[in-house]
């Protein structure tokens, strides 16, 4: 009990420190690095959300781009066809739409496990990708929608949204949005950690390790998996909804399964079995992607080789290595 309280204080202190550092960044960083940091935080939220299924529940989804894309696209459609211009409504609608999709797809997918689960999630996300890239969803909005599709081929523009009803000047928008993203990052991670350490989170690990053991202990396996899927998809959808206003241009790439795979790779690189592993992986992934541009042709290869190295040498991911090093230095770092 005592150590639990101790850990709780540690988490609050860590979250407060992380929040303070993040909130100081707009004053320190030039616009472009701030933009990249914003993107890294979004990917970190997505990877942490994905990991509720992958690391905690042992279910490998290849279709989480669908929720990221739904989160990003929903507000863009609402802007284009219904004149929605507020960031809050954009975030809310995208998250709810992604959550609803995750509830429906998850309900069907959790009946399968392992490779069948991966293929099912992949299939659903490919259907959604096709509906966007072939214009079927645009056609729902009549001739205007179809005309838009013919011009943009599935991409969508997002304006500078109003934040709390206030329109921002072009160079003031990204710092304000950054603050929203940083705050979202801290709050989402605190919520996910709370779920992770709850008996529900423990039960998910139990299901991951053995379905029948979890069942005879009293865990309703399919229902718990579904709840994990819902939490995971909604979180990734929220990340997507943050991404739209930041990127200002959404493309079908965000719905493509390669994006799902990248989220998974980043999570595995950082370490799926520790809570902060996916966050570390997301930062590394975005960092490599951005700052390795000098080797442009090779960055995929560099990332791939790094991942191969990690999987063979440190299956727990890079965060495991960091934690072990910290433990050796005398600290008792568990996450």
């Amino acid at each position: 009990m005592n150590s639990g309280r101790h850990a709780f204080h540690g988490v609050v202190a860590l979250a407060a420190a992380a929040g303070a550092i993040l909130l100081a960044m707009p004053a320190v960083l030039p616009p472009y690095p701030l933009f990249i940091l914003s993107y890294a935080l979004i990917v970190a939220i997505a990877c942490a959300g994905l990991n509720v299924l992958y690391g905690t529940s042992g279910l490998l989804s290849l279709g989480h781009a669908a929720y990221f894309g739904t989160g990003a696209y929903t507000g863009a459609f609402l802007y284009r066809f219904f004149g929605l211009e507020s960031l809050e409504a954009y975030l809310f609608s995208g998250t709810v739409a992604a959550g609803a999709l995750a509830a429906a797809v998850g309900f069907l997918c959790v009946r399968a496990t392992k490779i069948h689960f991966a293929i099912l999630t992949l299939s659903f996300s490919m259907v959604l990708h096709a509906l966007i890239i072939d214009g079927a969803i645009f056609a729902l909005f009549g001739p205007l929608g179809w005309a838009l599709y013919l011009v943009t081929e599935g991409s969508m523009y997002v304006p500078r949204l109003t934040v709390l009803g206030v329109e921002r000047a072009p160079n003031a928008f990204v710092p304000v949005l950054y603050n929203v993203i940083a705050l979202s990052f801290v709050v989402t991670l605190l919520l996910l950690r709370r779920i992770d350490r709850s008996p529900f989170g423990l039960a998910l690990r139990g299901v991951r390790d053995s379905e029948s053991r979890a069942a005879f202990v009293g865990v309703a396996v399919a229902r718990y998996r579904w709840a994990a899927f819902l939490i995971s998809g909604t979180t990734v959808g929220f990340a997507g909804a943050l991404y739209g206003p930041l990127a200002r241009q959404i493309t079908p790439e965000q719905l493509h399964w390669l994006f799902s795979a990248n989220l998974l790779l980043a999570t595995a690189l950082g370490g799926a079995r520790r809570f902060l592993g996916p966050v570390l992986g997301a930062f590394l992934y975005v960092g490599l992607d951005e700052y390795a541009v000098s080797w442009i042709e090779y960055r995929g290869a560099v990332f791939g080789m790094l991942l191969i190295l990690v999987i063979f040498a440190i299956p727990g991911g890079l965060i495991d290595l960091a934690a072990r090093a910290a433990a050796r230095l005398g600290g008792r770092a568990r996450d």
Partner: protein
Amino acid sequence: MTAVLEVQNIHTYRSTAHILHDVSLTVGEREVVCLVGRNGAGKTTTIESIMGLLPVRTGSIRFQGEDITGLPAHRRARLGLGYSPENCGIFPDLSVAENLSISRWLSEERAAGGGNGAAVEERVFSVFPEVRSLTGRRGLNLSGGQRKMVAIARAMFLSPGLLLLDEAFEGLAPVIVSRFREAMIKIKALGISLLMAESHLPAAAAIADRLYAIDRGEIIFHGKPQDALRNEDVMKTLRG
């Protein structure tokens, strides 16, 4: 005596192999019943059928008067069927405290906030005080005897009416066996019935109120332990 568990004429298959042939047995309130038989006789299959981990083809299973034949395992657990399998089924990646807290949480959920968690915990630790000192240990790092204690403790957190124990004494040092026997008597005194699968007849006879002998998926004897020990045919079959 009213029956807590009534198994009537069940037939169970593992894929295409017909394992259980017309098995019937009952467990009464506050009764310790042992199911004895050699390895491969059908003990585990019987227990798994009762727990809902294997589907029965025909026949029925009633628990505390309710027909549970078609219920999934987790529903049976929530009704109060506790189970400790032969391999104990501890989640290796979780600590002992975490292993226990899942069951504790589920039973509190079942009681819908009628929170008697502390009382249940008291009861569990009165039977196995040793478990208290193991709570920080990971499931992976437990010895065989500790694993069995934790598995039974975990099942008790569900406030069961009946505990199904598969090979509870297997692989234990003689000192620990007597410790476990003592624990079984305490569990019985708490009002929990026990159905134990055992391959060692003398161990079973020492604590059972009643005893079933199973061979090749059929019940070949049912009665008092002393009668089983005196029955030449039963002894011969069990010895192999």
